[in-house]
């Protein structure tokens, strides 16, 4: 486990899980204190924590607004899902890093957990 008390830098997660960064112009040296997984935006609004990494398959523009509202550390889209141009434009404007993974949610979250991240 490379993290202390389950905290990691986003760039480390990207490297460890070979994520593709869709917003390369954003600073990826930011702290991730935990993770949250949900495809219901209302649930993410209600239950995610600041500086969480959010794993979802939703690619709608609204995910950026939710991440911005909750001050999330970034969004990982699973199954290689490709966000719309509008979503990425808003991600850049709102300073929300968006990454994609070829892995399905189960596999991806298992690896995040193995890195030491928890839901907090």
């Amino acid at each position, binding site marked *: 486990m490379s993290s202390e008390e389950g905290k990691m830098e986003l760039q480390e997660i990207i490297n460890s899980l070979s994520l593709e960064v869709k917003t390369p112009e954003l600073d990826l040296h930011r702290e991730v204190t935990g993770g949250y997984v949900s495809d*219901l*935006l*209302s649930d993410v*609004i*209600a239950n995610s924590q600041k500086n969480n990494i959010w794993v979802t398959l*939703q*690619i*709608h523009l*609204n995910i950026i*607004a*939710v991440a*911005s*509202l909750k001050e999330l550390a970034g969004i990982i889209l699973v199954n290689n899902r490709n966000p719309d141009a509008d979503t990425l434009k808003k991600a850049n404007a*709102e300073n929300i890093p968006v990454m994609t993974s070829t892995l399905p949610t189960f596999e991806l979250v298992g690896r995040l957990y193995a890195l030491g991240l928890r839901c907090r």
Partner: protein
Amino acid sequence: MPVEFRADLHIHTCLSPCADLFMTPRNIIERAASLGIHMIAVCDHNSAENIAVTHDLGKKRGITVIPGMEISSSEEVHILGLFNSLARVLDMQAQVYEHLQPGENDEHAFGMQVVVNEVDEVREFNKRLLIGSTDLPLDRVVALIHGFQGIAIASHIDREGFGVIGQLGFIPPETGFDALEISSRTSMDKAEETFSMYRSIPWITSSDAHQLADIGRKTVGLHLNHATFEELCLALKGAERRRVIF
């Protein structure tokens, strides 16, 4: 003898956080009038606070404004509720407000929620989290709409996000939708091919307009005697020679 009316039954106003601020009741009515649309329904997300003004302006320009809302169920399925009067939509709004996810709108994240008057002046900013969802499951939302004698339409069933099929995989047969909406992004041929199993429920197309230029990009033809809610209900049932032209 029924004649054809054009209707755009899914239009947002500037009260919806995701809609353009130019979507004022006055602009919407003028745009609809210029396009020759006879009937519109105003369906803001989880609120009905701009409907009275739109209705009054529509009356002056000869456009029927059906009071409506686009309600978000607990599964994040969007459902259009259309009603026969302002009083009914406000009854529904009271239920929705009671069950809406708590929290205040963040204008920076989601956009402004503006309640306006007849001349585009701001009356107030709605503070509720209208982009959020209610804790009402889909079947409960439909039951409430029907309880207020309204029409329940599944919004944009062809959209992955917030459509009933995208959120729940298929349309539960017992849900009781009065109609299904196909959005502007899917052609009729494609819809016929993809959703043929749902052809027993009437289909409509509408613009889901969030900006003025969207209004009327898709409309539905209705054979009615008059452009009224009651006639629309008959058309969806295919009763008394009224019908939806699709």
